[in-house]
């Protein structure tokens, strides 16, 4: 519970602070605009209320002056867009970290689980095919592909080392899900038929939660997963301990089965 507060959750990824900066700037501006505006509104209501001896005036305020708030709003919005939004968006969504320097995983959503496909010690993913999917092989990893021999899959339990970018290829087996880790400020829809790349860099050790942000069926509310951000050594130990998927079932499966 320590990770969550009355306002935003703890900042546990490298760009959480940048997103929060935007949230605070915009909310501060919103509140400022709203307060100033409400004061003016309240003044008008009091000053021009109907009363004895007061008559409405047919004043014609200079119409162009009324465009000043519009211009101010547009100026504010476009400055935020140019100085903050587009640069940040580009670095978050339009460029990806180098695969060599990252933890690369496939995240495959299904009703109502998050499967994480780790490449195993060889760093290579085995081929996957929808035709091979069955109860013991939820991602349909090809058993004849040597690259897949040491792959392992966790369900609703993902581990990442602190301070190293994670490059996740997000997809879905059935319907649209949305991968959301509030503490990382990261969210991306997992769309069947598409593989969407996604990256984040955990910066704070601890236990966090993945939630599904897109209605995906009856179990939408219970579609969650644990994210454990560990120190480098703890992560390596965990990684080594994971048995590769051979013919046996996926290890690390914790619940929902």
């Amino acid at each position, binding site marked *: 519970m320590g990770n*969550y507060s009355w*306002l*935003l*959750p703890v900042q546990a990824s490298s760009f959480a602070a*940048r*997103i929060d900066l*935007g949230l605070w700037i*915009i909310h501060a501006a*919103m509140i400022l605009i709203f307060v100033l*505006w409400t004061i003016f*509104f309240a003044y*008008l*209501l009091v000053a*021009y*209320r*109907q*009363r004895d001896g*007061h*008559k*409405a005036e*047919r*004043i014609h*305020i200079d*119409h162009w002056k*009324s*465009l000043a708030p*519009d211009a101010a709003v*547009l100026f504010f*919005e476009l400055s935020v867009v140019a100085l*903050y939004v*587009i640069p940040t968006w580009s670095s*978050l969504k*339009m460029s990806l970290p180098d695969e060599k320097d990252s933890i690369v995983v496939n995240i495959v959503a*299904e009703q109502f689980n998050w499967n994480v496909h780790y490449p195993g010690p060889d760093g290579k993913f085995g081929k996957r095919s*929808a*035709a091979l999917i*069955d109860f013991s092989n939820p991602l349909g990893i090809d058993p004849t592909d040597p690259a897949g021999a040491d792959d392992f899959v966790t369900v609703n339990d993902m581990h990442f080392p602190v301070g190293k970018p994670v490059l996740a290829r997000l997809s879905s087996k*059935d*319907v*649209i899900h*949305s991968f*959301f880790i*509030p*503490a990382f*400020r990261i*969210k991306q*829809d997992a769309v*069947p*038929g598409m593989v969407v790349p996604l990256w984040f860099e955990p910066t704070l050790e601890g236990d966090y*939660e993945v*939630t599904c*942000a*897109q*209605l*995906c*069926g009856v*179990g*939408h*509310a*219970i579609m969650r997963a644990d994210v454990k951000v560990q120190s480098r050594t703890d992560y390596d130990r965990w990684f080594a301990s994971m048995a590769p998927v051979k013919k046996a079932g996926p290890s690390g499966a914790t619940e929902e089965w």
Partner: protein
Amino acid sequence: MSEHGHELSFTEKYIFSVDHKVIGLQYMITSFIFLLIGFTMILIMRWQLAFPGTVIPIFGKLLPATFAPGGILGPTGYNQMGAMHGTIMVFLGIVPLAVGAFGNYVMPIQIGAPDMAFPRMNMLSYWVYLPGGILMLSSFLMPGGAAQSGWTSYPPLSVINPGQTVWLLSMVFLITSSLLGSMNFIVTVLNLRAPGMTLWRMPLFCWSQFVTAFILLLAFPPLEAAAILQLSDRVLHTSFFMPDGLVVAGQAAQYAGGGAVLLYQHLFWFLAHPEVYVLILPPFGIISEIIATNTRKPLFGYKEMVYAMMSIAAMSFLVWAHHMFLSGMSPALSNFFLITTMIISVPSVALLTCLILSLKGASIRFTTPMLFALSFLPMFGIGGLTGLPLGLTVTDIYLHDTYYVIGHFHYVVVTGSLMGLFGGVYHWFPKMFGRKMDDCLGKIHFWGSVIAMNGILMPMLVIGLQGQSRRLFDPTAQLHNLIGQPMHVLSTISAIALMLFQIPFIYNFFNSMFRGELVDSNPWKATTLDWDCPSPPPHGNFAKVPRVYRGPYEYSHPDHNEDWLPQSREHAEAAR
């Protein structure tokens, strides 16, 4: 009741009537009933959100076991009600009330027309809407229950879930009804204005209906196409929205594949974003009328407001994908929609600014409709402002699909549109029935509603910032939501209060119909043509076709001894 020569049977007069006023009232009553049904659904859902796993009071025992086993709402029931709440409120509640009811009743008399251009088509559009609505509700009784994929109905979920076929069929009814209505509105405004009523002399309410009709006409067909394609995916097993390699519950789906999942979202939002402006523009028109009447001065920036509405309508077709920043759509495309979204906020700000500045120099009468109109301004302001972090791609990463979104659009639609529509009811009630609604009850209704609405919606913004996803059947199933639980309780209690505060309104509405204070045809001393005809207006509205001599808001005219100068009066009486 038959003070006029031509005798009509009861059926012709009240059920299959071709009179725009009767049709307007039919729409009004029907849409209020749907609003009440949709609101009851959300009360049941809110109970589950605040007190998960407990027996729902009153309704728990009435719901079937498939819905609420042992009186506790189940996830299937929750998802069905969630989808139906959204659908009912938007397509069966607010739009028919704003366009069908007020547009039908008020717009023809405001432009001095005897009726709509096509009275029979007008009747038809109501009689297509009503079966569509009943079909929608009846889907609860179908095997598999009602639609349960949200009001957005995203495939593949909506294609594999039960209940969606009836939803799609009923949408086809509702879309047809809207198309008939919008053609009728446009032709009426263009071809049936009283002599002298040039377009630039039309009241803003008529402008808002005119602009809205264009949005409906052009935005609904893409949804119709999307509905047809989805229906064929469900019924004919085509695969427009079904991609290759789908595996549902461990089984390969029986679809050929090759479809595009995001295509549906593009088609849906191409309608559904303009639809937001269908929800908001008519209430904007209504409150413009109320504010002009109760400030006793011309509205500030009449033409600016008309141009703002037109540019909103035009721009609304270019912003749809801001609902899809995180859908997997190309991030470069997002930048385009980010910019258009920022630009469309400008005309909205302009509308709000004009209405605020209209208060300057006024003599404000705080009548009940005026209270509703005034509360619209700051509350719609919150709705608009909270749209900002959602429209910016970067902050949307965090806030998208959280409760913040729900708070945002309910601020726009509930404290905005709905309050404006309530104001319209109080404003035009004397025209509809020749009697006024009770002021005291009206004020109780107003203050109760506005406080309760904020009590419902403010907590949503907070739990949204905490990162709580929307559409969760049980928020406490996830750790990070636990801290926000008291907010759900507050929201639910406010929702119950909001329901209670509608009782004075319902009582007031029906009681005033028969026992309200009798008033003359122009109780608010307003200038537009709707106040020139008797209350209620007879068949054909005007005994003699009115002639229009000036713009709509000539209040406090210096050459006139009274503070209002009707559009239809040829000369100002008595100089000062």
